[in-house]
Every structure is written in C-alpha cells, then in structure tokens.
C-alpha cells in the first residue's frame, strides 16, 4: 500500500513538474517573441483598420491568398448597391477592407490583370456569385463581413511538361519521405520498446521548428549553432518527459489505453500552448529567399539539398547504431521482447530513457528541416504530420525502425505524387495516406517489414 502511495507521489511530482515545464518553456519563448507580436494580429480582420460602429459604419474585409502567402498589389473592387464602385490595392499582407455606410448586397471582385502570373480567382459558389463572377456579400451597418475570395493557381502552366512534373514531384516526395523518416523512426522505436502509440509525437516536430524560429530568427543565432541547440533541447524534452511522466506511469502500471489518452491530452495542451505563445501565424526560420539550384528537370533550393543530405546521414547513423553498437542491439532486444531482454540483464528503463531522448531529438531535427524546406511551421503543422507518421509507421510495421524508414519514403512519394493524377485535387493528397493505411491493415496488418504474427 505504502509502495503504491509512494508511486502516486512520484507521479504527482512528475506531473507537476511536467506542467511547470509546459508553462515555463513557452513563457521563455514568449519573452523571445514579444518583439514580433506587433505583426501577429493575423486573426483580426481589417488591417487597413475599418472598425464597425453601431448605426454608423460597417466593414467588408478579407485577405487575398493565405496568411502565409498573401497576395499583394492586387486591385479589389467593391460594387455598392447603388452601382458605384470603390477600388483598393492590397498591401503586403494581402488584406483589403472597405468601409460601408448602408445595408445591402455588395459585390466584391478582383481585377485578374493585377494578380500575379499563374493565379486566378476561384469562382464563388452559384448562390453567392455576382453577374461577373464577383462574390456577393450581405453587409449591414455596424457589422463586420468577411469577403472570402479564394485565389488558386491557374490550371495551365506552359513551361513544364509531364515528365518534368513527375520528376519534380518524385524529388519532393523523396524529400518529404526523408523528413518523415527522421520522426517516424523515433515513433516506431518508442512503440517497439514501450508499446505506446505516442499521439504527441508530431508536436515534437513542431517544437523543433518553433525553437529554431525562436533561436535563429528571433535571437539571430547562426543556423548551425541554433540548430544544435534545438537538437539538445528537444532531446532534453524527451529525457524529461520520460523521467517525470512516462516512467512513473509505467511503474504505476497504468494501462496502455490510458497512457495513449495521456499522450492525446499532452498533444492538445502543447498544440494550444504554441498558439497561445507564438500565435496562429506561420513562422519561418529564415526569411530570405533561398538560392535555387536546378539540375535537369528538377528545381530545388540549396536548403532542401542540405536537409536531404543531413537526414540521410543521420538516418544512416541511427541505422548503424541500431545494428552495430551494444546499446543499439540492446534497444532492438527490448523492442523484440522486453521481458526477455530484462531477464538477460538489459536495463530496460535505461534503454527506454535513451529511446525517448533520441526519438525526440530526431523529431526536433525533422521539425527544423521541415520548417526550412517548406514555407515555415505553424501551431497545427503537427496535425498533418501525425497522420503521415502513423501511416508510415503502420505501413512499415509498427515497432520496426527500418520499416518506419521504408514506410516514410513510400508515404512521402505517394503524398507528393498523388496530385499528378488528373482526378486528385491537391488538397486530397493526405487522403492518399489514409487509403494506404486502411489497405495495409486489410492486406498485411503487420506491415511491410513486420514479422507475420498474430496482432489481434
């Protein structure tokens, strides 16, 4: 009984520590980011500051392009109910904001000539479409109405041929696959050694990107120094999590289902922690436009090439360590059969602690590279990545490190190549990952490299 109570206290201390950590780390981040807060009001509409006043003025406002990729210098025209028009040019943030003084149906349109090449306005749905393809907006005085004009890439692009597109997408797929592999190897090892599916794993990827933004962009550290610091910090969060949370819970004998719900709660708390302290905008580690290299049909940035080389080297290092070193063999032994490994004298707790540390450091590295090669990282980037990670890990075989590698590469290719099919629009590409997940579970539930054993 007293033993049990003692564990309860350990868990209590651990959880308090974790919550303290959760609160303190972002606070530190907050200190670093306050300077950037002025331009963070992404969610407040009407940057050109139209503020609705009851019975006096109303507003119609919106943003062209996404918040991450606003479209500047486009002419937006408002047609008033009495037929007069008013034109505004969007600023650097892509925002426009009209002040109105009468209730009624307004039409908002964009001059296609002023949009950047290769973009067009997506026609609004029929019930909201004006005579010339504008968007109808019902506005009232004293109210704020959003005019959501969606801008999409025009379908044609005369400069690329089919073959070029395929090789470009294949290259992007390889890049995504390598980045996913960094994170999914860790996820798979954690699953293998502890049996836990860590739903907060993708949040660690986001953490890597966020910390890199904080150190490199905000504090002005050199990328290399900042990156190494992020790696160390992310590894520390892994060590710390296992020390104060997962190990006490394991000792306490909490079931895996319950532990999974704990990871879910953790992921929710961390995710909104990012939103709370950093905001809901996309942050970038390096703001300058990267240097572009092209060889053959493939165009890419130097950052992407470096990121791919780094991932490949690190993955090879992890693979070598798993196969050839003592601690690597011990890890695989624990992954195979924890009880047997413990019986043969392996300190499983130590191995698991190491796995958590390395897995989180790898996830952090993946996050830095992801933030560098894509447009940046956002509080909910983890949401998208988690789905891909789980698909990759299941495809390769839950618990097998090399399976996770293979699975990630396959998922990377599929996600990037599926929009090439004529009937798959770009925003369906993640659905392809789910499809693979379901098919794998139906046909070969143990995954590509998993051992054929009863898994249910």
């Amino acid at each position, binding site marked *: 009984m007293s033993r049990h109570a003692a564990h309860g206290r350990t*868990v209590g201390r651990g959880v308090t520590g974790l919550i303290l950590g959760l609160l303190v780390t972002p606070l530190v981040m907050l200190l670093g980011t306050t300077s950037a807060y002025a331009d963070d009001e992404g969610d407040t509409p009407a940057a050109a500051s139209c503020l609705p006043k009851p019975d006096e003025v109303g507003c119609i406002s919106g943003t062209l392009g996404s918040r991450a990729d606003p479209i500047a210098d486009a002419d937006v025209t408002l047609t008033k109910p009495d037929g007069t028009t008013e034109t505004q040019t969007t600023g650097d943030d892509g925002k426009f904001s009209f002040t109105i003084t009468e209730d009624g149906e307004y039409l908002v349109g964009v001059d296609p000539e002023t949009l950047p090449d290769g973009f067009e306005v997506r026609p609004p749905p029929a019930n909201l479409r004006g005579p010339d393809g504008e968007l109808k907006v019902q506005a009232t005085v004293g109210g704020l109405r959003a005019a959501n004009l*969606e801008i999409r890439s025009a379908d044609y692009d005369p400069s690329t041929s089919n073959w070029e597109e395929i090789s470009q997408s294949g290259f992007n797929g390889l890049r995504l696959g390598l980045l996913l592999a960094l994170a999914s190897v860790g996820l798979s090892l954690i699953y293998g050694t502890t049996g836990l599916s860590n*739903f907060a794993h993708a949040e660690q990827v986001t953490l890597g990107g966020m910390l890199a933004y904080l150190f490199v962009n905000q504090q002005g550290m050199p990328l290399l120094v900042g990156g190494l610091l992020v790696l160390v910090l992310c590894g520390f969060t892994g060590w710390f999590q296992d020390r104060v949370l997962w190990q006490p819970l394991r000792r306490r004998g909490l079931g*895996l289902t319950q532990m999974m*719900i704990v990871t879910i709660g953790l992921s*929710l*708390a*961390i995710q909104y922690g990012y939103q709370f302290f950093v905001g809901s905008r996309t942050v970038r580690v390096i703001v300058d436009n990267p240097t572009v290299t092209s060889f053959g049909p493939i165009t890419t940035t130097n950052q992407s090439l470096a990121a791919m080389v780094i991932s490949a080297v690190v993955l090879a290092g992890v693979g070598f360590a798993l196969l050839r070193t003592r601690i690597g063999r011990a890890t695989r032994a624990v992954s195979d059969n924890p009880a047997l490994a413990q019986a043969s004298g392996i300190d499983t707790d130590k191995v698991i602690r190491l796995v958590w540390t390395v897995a989180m450091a790898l996830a952090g590295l993946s996050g830095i590279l992801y933030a560098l090669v894509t447009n940046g990282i956002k509080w909910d980037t983890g949401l998208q990545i988690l789905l891909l990670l789980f698909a990759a890990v299941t495809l390769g075989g839950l618990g097998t490190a090399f399976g996770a590698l293979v699975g990630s590469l396959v998922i990377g290719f599929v996600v990037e190549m599926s929009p090439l099919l004529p009937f798959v629009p770009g925003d369906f590409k993640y659905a392809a990952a*789910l499809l693979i*997940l379901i098919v794998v579970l139906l046909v070969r539930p143990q995954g590509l490299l998993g051992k054929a054993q009863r898994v249910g």
Partner: protein
Amino acid sequence: MDEIQQILNSMMSSATGPQTAAVAIAVIGLNIHFGYTGLLNIGQSAFMLLGAYGFAITIKEGIPALGIEPLGFAALVAGVIVGMGLAFIFALILGVPTLKLRGDYLAIVTISAAEIVRYIGRSVGYETLFGLTGGAQGIPGSQYRAPFTDLSPLGNGNSTLLEFNYTDVADGAVWVRLVGWVIGIAIIAAIVHVARGRAGLTGTPKRVAIAGLSVLALVVLLFLAPVNNQNTGVNGWFVTIVAWCVAAISTVVVLFLVKSPWGRALRGVREDEDAMRSLGKNVFAIKMQALVIGGLFGAVGGMLYVLPATVQPDSMGRSLTFFCYTALLLGGAATIWGPILGSIIFFAGRIMIIGISNTYFDGFMSSQESSQFAFIVVGVVLMLLVIFRPQGILGDKRELRFNV
C-alpha cells in the same frame, strides 16, 4: 459582484445550451465505444461532422430523385436518415480493417480518418463537392434551419427560466445572492453525501433522494443565474428542449442496451476478448455493432450541434473529440449518467475559465488567447484525470482497468 454574476450567467446558459446537449449525445455514443466496449475511437468528431453534413446538405438540396423538396418536413426526416446512414458507412469503413487487430490500430485509423473527413469537407478541389459543403466556410445555419424551426409550437418572443429569480427578491441585493450560493453549495454537498451512502439510504429511497435534491439544485441554480432565450430563434428554447429530450432518450436507450445480454457481452469484450471468444461469441461482430451504434449517437449529436450554428469542418475537428473524451472521463466512463453530467460540468467549467481569464486577467491575455488558454487547461485536465481519477465523478475504478 456584477462580473461574477455575468460569469455565472454565461456558465449557466452554456451548461443548459443545445450544443452542450448535442455533445452529451455524442459522448453517450463514445461511452458505448470507450466506456463499455473499450474501443479507443479518437474520431468521434468525424461521426458528428458526417451526421451534420448529411443532415444539412439533404435539407438544403432535397433529394430530387425521390421527389423530396428542399427545406420541407420530408427533407428534415430524410436529412436525419442520410446523416445516420453516412455515419453507419463510416463506422463500417473504420471497423472492417481494424477491429480484428490490436486496439491501437483503431485509434490510429480513427484519428486519421477524422482529419481526412475534415480535409475533404474544406476541400475546394471538386466543384460539385465544394458547392455542397461550402469549403472551409461551411454551410450557414440559415440554409437548413427553417424546416426545424417551423415545427416549433412555442411561437415568438422571449422566455426566462426561472421567471422568479434573484432579481425579484430585494432587487437582487448582494446578500440574496450570497445566501443563494451557500444554499446551492449545501444542496450539492448533500447530493454527494447521499450518493456516497453516508446518509444511511440505500436502494429506491437513495435514488429518490438524489433525484429530488438534483431537481432542487437545478431550481436554485436557475434562481441564481436565470437563462433568457428566444422561444424559437437560432439558439432558442425550442432547439434546447429538443436537444435535451434527445439526450434523455439516448440515455434511456443506453440504459436498456447495457442492461441487456448484449450489454454484458460488450463488457465481456472489454474485459477479456479471448474469454469471450472461447465462449463462442463473435467478438468482431460485437465490436462492430458497438462501433456502429456509438457512431449513430455521434451523428445525431452532430445534427443537433449544428442546428444553432453552422456546419463548419474546422469547428468539428480533433479538439471536439478531445472535448468528448474529457467530458466522458470527467463524468465517468461506463456509467449511465456520466456523459450528461460530464458534458454539463465540462462546458460550464470551460466558460468559467474563459470568463475568469477575460475578466480578471484582461491585461495578460486577449479574449482569443483566453480561449486558447482554456484548450491548454482541457489538455492538462484530460491527462490528470486519466492519471489520478480514471473513474471520473460517477465511475467505478474496477471497470476501467482494461487494456489494449
């Protein structure tokens, strides 16, 4: 004082609101999945979203092939059927590949599928699909609400519950409210006292005492924080009453289901699948039935959730599922009344956190940040609940020792 009264009022209107009832129904479904059968479904929001889409789109567009006009009573009935049908198909798609495998595969597939349903809902890729779902902006309630509000017998105007409240005694003086709060807390303490068996009551007298005290507590709470609503409007009494009636009916249905032999089979699967198999039960079929039935409750919850709001994919994403889990674990998984109690306390508590941080920490957080802060608190509460009190308020710890 006024600030506290304001927070109390908004807590009360959130606790009694139709969306709370709607989430309670989804939680009842989740209770069948997680509480009784031990299925870790992390995609309950997708069942709700599919129910809502089926409901709203059918009402908005009608079904021309069957001669069902849009925005009619027939469309309303068809909408409910279509919404439930979508959830049924979704449950089959999720269940067939995963229910024969270890439990965490269901968790992985449900969380992924819920995300995909949300992506597809907000997709602008297919013109026809976009026309139906309205993309990320969703379908405004005004496009499908009419056939439901047309049924309202309540007419126009406003009503307050309770009509007789603190403002009628000594003009709502501070001492009236203070005395009221003391009485309210005393009654709730009395309920806990009786429920724990300390008052020497058992069986029917205990149940009657708890029911009586609960009604009394509700009256006192409404006296202290009256709720004023339109009779028929967007968020009015009609949709509120319907939502809570459906929640009550769902509770009774679940009560009968879990007392039946089928309900015992569910718990058998949760406790020991192999034992159930050796008794000749078809474990896969039982799990699938549980997944489908729980999903149907989710779909109904989704329909009621969007009646006073819009069908917006981003507002029915992962966080809604986590709300459901927190509410379920708060009230007590594998209990009859846990989902309803948990949802009420959860939503009132969330509004309390937002209200307090808006009122007293105004300089520290903007109103947007305080709702994000509430999300962080929800995540931490979920972790703490699972670790320290997995049985919640009403549950039995022994019922929740199951594992994947």
